[in-house]
């Protein structure tokens, strides 16, 4: 089967500094991939390159066999890549329902939203557990609910690949568990491939089938969670090198 | 619709009903005369000064009282701001005619506004008297109810151009004019007249009101080597032009001739005698009586401005017409306007129809030369 997402020698320089360097990645459809690494390692840079917010300095990104690294973010979104943001972003001053509806309309613009679109929005809202907030303005919600609104808005665009940037940050353990369950459902029932950048290791370890570790812009390890967690290089990166 | 919008819609509805109830007018016990003029914006000086002139005239008139049909009346002025824009001028006139029910309207000062309100005077059948609009089309072809004391630009140019040609024998002329209808109109009228005498216009340049730096324009005139240079505009810019022209040495290479407002003492007070020395100006009106100038200074602590004279005369003219008509019917006052024969501060005021003009006074402008800060009429 063809890989869903292929990164080849993806590189990005800011000034003279390499935020990402020669990153390779093959991602099969239906996977749950975690990207971890210390602060400033370049995870978000890689994310932003995939979603088109920044252009790579070198290297290619292929999605379903098609190069996408020259496209604008909204084109990439239309191809089937959705994302959430590190600092939670919602459409502040409008109700939750309309937030999600915008996602549906961005996918398929109708002068008057169709019954089908309304139904989809309803479904997604129910799935993300936002029923009680439907009519509330998104800005008035808790962080956890806002994050779910962000997730719902992107889910309704029916992405094939979903990039989640620190979705768990700032949530309580209970909320994290809820989100994890939701993510499994998204992956299992909807068949959406997940890529998560996460600092809450517990979540990554529980959720992901495979993990890649980035440090100083370079991929230093790849493999199943347990293997990665016991990789000496990874431990060194996280905890600092042991004094020899 | 949002909830807050709903409340607003309701309040809007209530407001409109209230507005409707409040539009009923009230009866007048005095003679009401309207005055529309720019009191704000770049032309505000005209309105402000015009209002001074009207206040002076009003004091005199009300002290004496206006006898109409054996009854003593006083005059009340309703004045509104036109900001020198036609839409506001029209709103003023409509308000004066429909709400205030004035018997006559003074104003405006700006030609663009006069052009817009002149037809309205016909429509409402209320006589209007412009204070100082100069554009030809205000009285040519003219309107039955709209009057003008001062000559239009088209009337003026043929009267003074021959004097200039005879005196200076120029071969070329340059124009520096304010970019409004007055400036452009007068410049093209003079240019046309000069053309008849074979004087070529080598340069016409425009500046905006409020401009302060004229070095560019003056440099261009100097470059064009014109024999006479006309500057058409109002005193503040004129004073600047003269000061800067002297700074540049333009006064030596070309004869500078200012438009009619440059013939006022005001110019000397602003630019100084030195800057005006040896320049010329078209002058529209005679010398102002000294005691009137003193009154202005005493009452307003302000220098003389021709808008004061014009507005003063305008109110007196209208009052004269009311007394002649012996009626407060605007149509009768209009008819009486035609009979007014009055010696105002600015000259002889008598409205006539001639050469396609209607309700227009005839003044003959003179050319004056500035010498040592005083006006010396050119023979």
């Amino acid at each position, binding site marked *: 089967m063809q890989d869903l997402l292929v990164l080849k020698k993806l590189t990005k320089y800011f000034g003279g500094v390499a935020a990402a360097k020669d990153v390779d990645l093959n991602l099969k459809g239906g996977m749950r991939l975690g990207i971890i690494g210390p602060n400033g390692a370049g995870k978000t840079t890689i994310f932003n390159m995939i979603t088109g917010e920044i252009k790579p300095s070198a290297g290619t990104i292929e999605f379903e066999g098609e190069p996408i690294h020259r496209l604008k973010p909204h084109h990439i979104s239309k191809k089937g890549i959705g994302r959430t943001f590190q600092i939670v972003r919602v459409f502040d001053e409008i109700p939750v329902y309309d937030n999600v509806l915008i996602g549906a309309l961005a996918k398929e613009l109708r002068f008057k939203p169709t019954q089908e679109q309304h139904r989809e929005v309803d479904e997604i809202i129910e799935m993300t557990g936002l029923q009680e907030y439907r009519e509330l303005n998104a800005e008035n919600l808790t962080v956890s609910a806002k994050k779910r609104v962000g997730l719902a808005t992107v889910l309704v665009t029916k992405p094939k690949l979903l990039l989640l940037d620190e979705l768990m940050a700032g949530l309580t353990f209970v909320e994290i568990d809820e989100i994890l369950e939701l993510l499994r459902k998204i992956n299992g029932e909807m068949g959406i491939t997940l890529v998560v950048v996460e600092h809450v290791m517990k979540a990554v370890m529980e959720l992901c089938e495979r993990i890649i570790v980035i440090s100083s812009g370079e991929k230093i390890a790849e493999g199943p969670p347990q293997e990665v*967690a016991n990789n000496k290089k990874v431990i060194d990166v996280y905890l600092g090198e042991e*004094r020899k | 619709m949002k909830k807050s919008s709903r409340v607003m819609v309701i309040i809007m509805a209530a407001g409109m009903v209230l507005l409707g109830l409040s539009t009923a007018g009230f009866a007048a016990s005095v003679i009401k005369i309207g005055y529309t003029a720019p009191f704000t914006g770049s032309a505000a000086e005209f309105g402000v000064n015009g209002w001074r002139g009207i206040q002076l005239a009003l004091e005199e008139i009300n002290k004496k009282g206006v006898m109409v049909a054996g009854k003593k009346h006083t005059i009340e002025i309703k004045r509104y701001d036109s900001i020198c824009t036609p839409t506001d001028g029209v709103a003023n006139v409509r308000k004066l005619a429909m709400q205030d029910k004035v018997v006559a309207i003074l104003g405006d000062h700006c030609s663009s506004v006069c052009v817009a309100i002149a037809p309205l005077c016909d429509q409402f059948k209320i006589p209007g008297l412009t204070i100082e609009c100069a554009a030809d089309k205000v009285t040519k072809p003219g309107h039955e109810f709209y009057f003008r004391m001062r000559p239009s630009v088209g009337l003026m140019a043929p009267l003074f151009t021959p004097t200039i040609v005879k005196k200076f024998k120029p071969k070329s002329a340059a124009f520096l004019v304010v970019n409004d209808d007055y400036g452009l109109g007068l410049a093209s009228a003079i240019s046309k007249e000069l053309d008849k005498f074979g004087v070529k216009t080598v340069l016409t340049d425009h500046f905006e009101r409020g401009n302060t730096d004229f070095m560019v324009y003056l440099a261009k005139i100097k470059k064009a080597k014109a024999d006479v240079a006309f500057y058409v505009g109002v005193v503040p810019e004129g004073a600047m032009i003269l000061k800067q022209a002297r700074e540049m040495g333009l006064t030596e290479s070309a004869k500078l001739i200012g438009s009619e407002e440059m013939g006022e003492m005001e110019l000397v007070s602003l630019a100084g005698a030195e800057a005006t020395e040896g320049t010329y100006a078209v002058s529209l009106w005679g010398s102002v009586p000294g005691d009137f100038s003193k009154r202005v200074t005493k009452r307003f602590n302000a220098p003389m401005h021709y808008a004061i004279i014009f507005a003063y005369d305008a109110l007196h003219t209208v009052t004269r017409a009311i007394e002649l008509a012996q009626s407060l019917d605007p149509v009768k006052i209009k008819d009486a306007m035609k009979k007014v024969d009055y010696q105002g501060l600015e000259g002889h005021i008598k409205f006539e129809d001639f050469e396609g003009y209607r309700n227009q006074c005839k003044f003959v402008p003179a050319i004056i030369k500035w010498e040592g800060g005083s006006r010396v009429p050119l023979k």
Partner: protein
Amino acid sequence: MMLEIENINAGYGEIQIVTDVSMNIDNNEIVALVGSNGAGKSTIIKAISGMLPVSSGSIIFEGKHIENTIAHKIITNGIALVPEGRRVFPYMTVLENLELGAYIENDQKTVQENMEWVFGLFPILDERKTQLAGTFSGGEQQMLTIGRALMSKPKFLMMDEPSLGLAPVIVDEVFKIVEVLHNEGVTILLVEQNVRKSLEIANRGYVLEHGRIVLEGESKNLVEDEKVKKAYLGM
């Protein structure tokens, strides 16, 4: 006790990042505050330095309540900060950056003395004092930030991720400086993700996980503790 933090809660707007955190720092200690990204280390630093308000709890510095003090007043107590991401003033020279470090000091002589002291610690700054800070490499900028913080002759120095994004050689240098400063009598709060290195030089350590202190104690004990590893790698 130099600094006592009692049950503080803080965060950004409605997002609470740290919950009921209590810490103590004694005179002339190096205390390491470790924990994974997003655990809330920087939030604690910001709360102490007045850049973020605390919603409850107290911060007591030398017996004086300083919680929710406006940021520019904190430094007058003798607290200085080496911020995360260096944050030098890029279009100013090294000298100007250092002078700003002593902004609260009005006595020119003291400023000069402090400057000598800093130049003694970082000779490279002396060599390049007229160069624009923005043209410096990451390591050099880090030296400058530390030097700038020292210009106010602080009793208490907070360092937020001083080794982040630096080459290993430079990292070693930074840690060496921390030790030197400690020897000069400066109390230091070290926030680091380089757990092993920071615990090595620290007297005591606190481990922060998800906005709460999960472990505290002598640093040599912490180095060996499996919980630290768990806090980082989530096992």
